[in-house]
């Protein structure tokens, strides 16, 4: 059994987690009946235009629980590289609600004979869209990469599923007594059914009696993907081309492997392929851009430093020690960054200010298929295998960073040296997306990969674009690069080529 990281002090049980969620909701969710909305609202989104909100939805939106999402960057630290990616989880949430509406209306319009989706179904799934990112912490996936490896998730993950950690936290928030009480009051006051258990299952993607409803919010081409692909590409300035109009008029419901699922007609295959390729391009160009990864390592370094030195962060009367994933829900991006101005700990102050003022870590070394030479009998796989998000691989990468730090003569804080091996996105969606070759009785939907192996080709693209890095403070690139070269070559029997340094504008060390 792979080792777990022993340095984590985590909430050991589901009961403890539920108590912590109740404590969090006591601070972020007002008493039922406190927030009222007398009429619908119209919000103008910069990407999609007008979003209409019903009074019941406003009663959730106008709570600190949802409003905090305004202070959480959708794409984490990427705004330090792509300056316009300052969009937040809040506007993404509104965008997903709109996409649910549009997808749902398209399904009703183009499946006239068997209306298996109703307007009240769409209303319920809009609530799922409203709640779906409640479990995100500061800098979105950057904090998820930290708390997501805590062992607690092994015990709270619903059986036979493997949702993202933030989805699991969202699930437990929705299942909490305090949230249920608030929800029941809204449901009663505004005469709107809000089936929380079903909504929680949609968000986490559990098998339900109505998989096509779940797929509107958690599926291969769900509202969440449709919004973030467009939003993130728009604000990063990367023009990605997806024919969304065509997708909407080709969505259908059909029987797939004994279930009623969301499919597209044959002419909808092209936008689906575009979605898959766009996702891979976004990953390689934006989410896994080396500067974005460097800044996320810096955020991880801040948390690591605070944990090791036992420096709590106080929010109201709550002391955050990062032992529990719920600790991450108490703060937003601005709060962690402003802590740099408050703290008396000089090193912590510097770590936070380096991120705040964009004094980013830089590449000492690039790790890729083109910058290393595998030798006879190399052990490279023992390094490459740790391009994974679990506590064991995280510990191994930190241990390796420590070794490099020691070899380089402790030139900085350990929290400023990082071995970063990003995990490629999986393209399972290509197998899980179905196309109706013809709208004729008896025709069986086929997977997108059967029409054209989209997933496989996108995977090869990602494979060839993949980069791992060793990050360090800018002025230490030469000594750290040299130390990293020595350590990696000794441990894994490979040769680091001069390109590993030249591509990051560093002179290769003399052999």
């Amino acid at each position, binding site marked *: 059994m792979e080792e777990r990281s022993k340095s984590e002090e985590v909430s050991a049980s589901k009961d403890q987690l539920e108590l912590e969620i109740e404590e969090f909701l006591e601070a972020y969710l007002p008493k039922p009946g406190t927030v009222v909305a007398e009429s619908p609202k119209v919000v103008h989104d910069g990407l999609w235009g007008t979003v209409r909100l019903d009074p019941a939805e406003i009663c959730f939106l106008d709570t600190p629980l949802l409003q905090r999402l305004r202070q959480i960057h959708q794409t984490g630290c990427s705004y330090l590289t792509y300056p316009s990616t300052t969009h937040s989880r809040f506007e993404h949430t509104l965008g997903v609600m709109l996409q649910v509406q549009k997808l749902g209306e398209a399904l009703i319009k183009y499946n006239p004979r068997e209306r298996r989706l109703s307007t009240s179904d769409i209303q319920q799934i809009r609530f799922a869209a409203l709640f779906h990112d409640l479990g995100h912490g500061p800098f979105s996936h950057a904090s998820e990469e930290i708390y997501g490896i805590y062992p607690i998730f092994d015990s709270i993950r619903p059986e036979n599923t493997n949702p993202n950690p933030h989805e699991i936290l969202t699930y437990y928030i929705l299942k909490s007594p305090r949230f249920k009480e608030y929800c029941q009051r809204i449901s009663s006051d505004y005469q709107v059914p809000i089936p929380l258990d079903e909504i929680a299952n949609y968000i986490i993607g559990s098998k339900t009696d109505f998989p096509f409803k779940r797929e509107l919010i958690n599926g291969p081409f769900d509202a969440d993907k449709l919004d973030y692909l467009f939003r993130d590409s728009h604000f990063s300035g990367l023009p990605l081309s997806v024919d969304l109009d065509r997708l909407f008029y080709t969505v259908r419901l059909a029987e797939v492997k004994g279930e009623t699922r969301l499919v597209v007609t044959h002419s909808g295959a092209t936008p689906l392929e575009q979605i898959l390729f766009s996702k891979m391009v976004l990953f390689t160009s934006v989410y896994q851009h080396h500067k974005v990864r460097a800044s996320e390592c810096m955020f991880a370094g801040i948390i690591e430093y605070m944990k090791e030195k036992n420096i709590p962060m106080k929010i109201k009367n709550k002391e955050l020690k990062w032992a529990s994933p719920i600790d991450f829900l108490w703060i937003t991006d601005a709060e962690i960054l402003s802590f740099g101005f408050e703290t008396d700990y000089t090193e912590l102050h510097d770590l936070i200010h380096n991120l705040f003022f964009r004094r980013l870590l830089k590449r000492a070394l690039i790790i890729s*298929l083109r910058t290393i030479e595998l030798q006879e009998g190399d052990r490279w*796989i023992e390094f490459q295998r740790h391009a994974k998000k679990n506590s064991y691989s995280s510990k191994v990468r930190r241990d390796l960073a420590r070794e490099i730090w020691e070899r380089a003569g402790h030139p900085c804080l350990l929290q400023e040296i990082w071995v970063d091996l990003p*995990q490629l996105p*999986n393209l399972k969606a290509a197998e899980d997306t179905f196309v109706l070759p013809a709208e004729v009785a008896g025709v069986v939907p086929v997977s997108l990969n059967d029409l054209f192996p989209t997933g496989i080709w996108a995977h090869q693209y990602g494979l060839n674009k993949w980069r791992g890095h060793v990050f360090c403070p800018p002025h230490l690139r030469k000594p750290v690069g040299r130390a990293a070269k020595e350590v990696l070559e000794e441990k894994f029997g490979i040769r680091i080529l001069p390109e590993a340094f030249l591509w990051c504008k560093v002179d290769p060390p003399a052999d």
Partner: protein
Amino acid sequence: MLPLAQNQKWTTFDAVKGLLAMLPEDRIPTRTPLLHQALYRLVQNTNFKKFLNDYVFDNRSYFPFARDFDTDLTNLEMSGHLSANNPGFTDYTIQPKLHKTFEKYTKDLFSPEELETLKKMADVFFEELEKLQAQT
């Protein structure tokens, strides 16, 4: 050389290397549903389950999917142990490197009885793949 972990115990990843190294043939399909379904069937066997304990199977879709198995295959491909370079990337070829790596660095982590079970696992895995391919 020692693996990065300080102990000498095998991990699920080592078992997967062994399984691939001991397959009766050196070609398997790359199709995700086939690979993951075949592996999931191994997990249902009490004799084999312990070798795959680190994988969490997600059954929300029509086929079970283990994220870390997917990543392990990608990493094996990136490090030259598997290659999917036929024109349509439809098959993985088990490279001689994987056999060498297993023989030299991984095999000794397992007891003789465990190796025997791994060989059986490899045979069953291959049979399951063939059955699943025939159904598609």
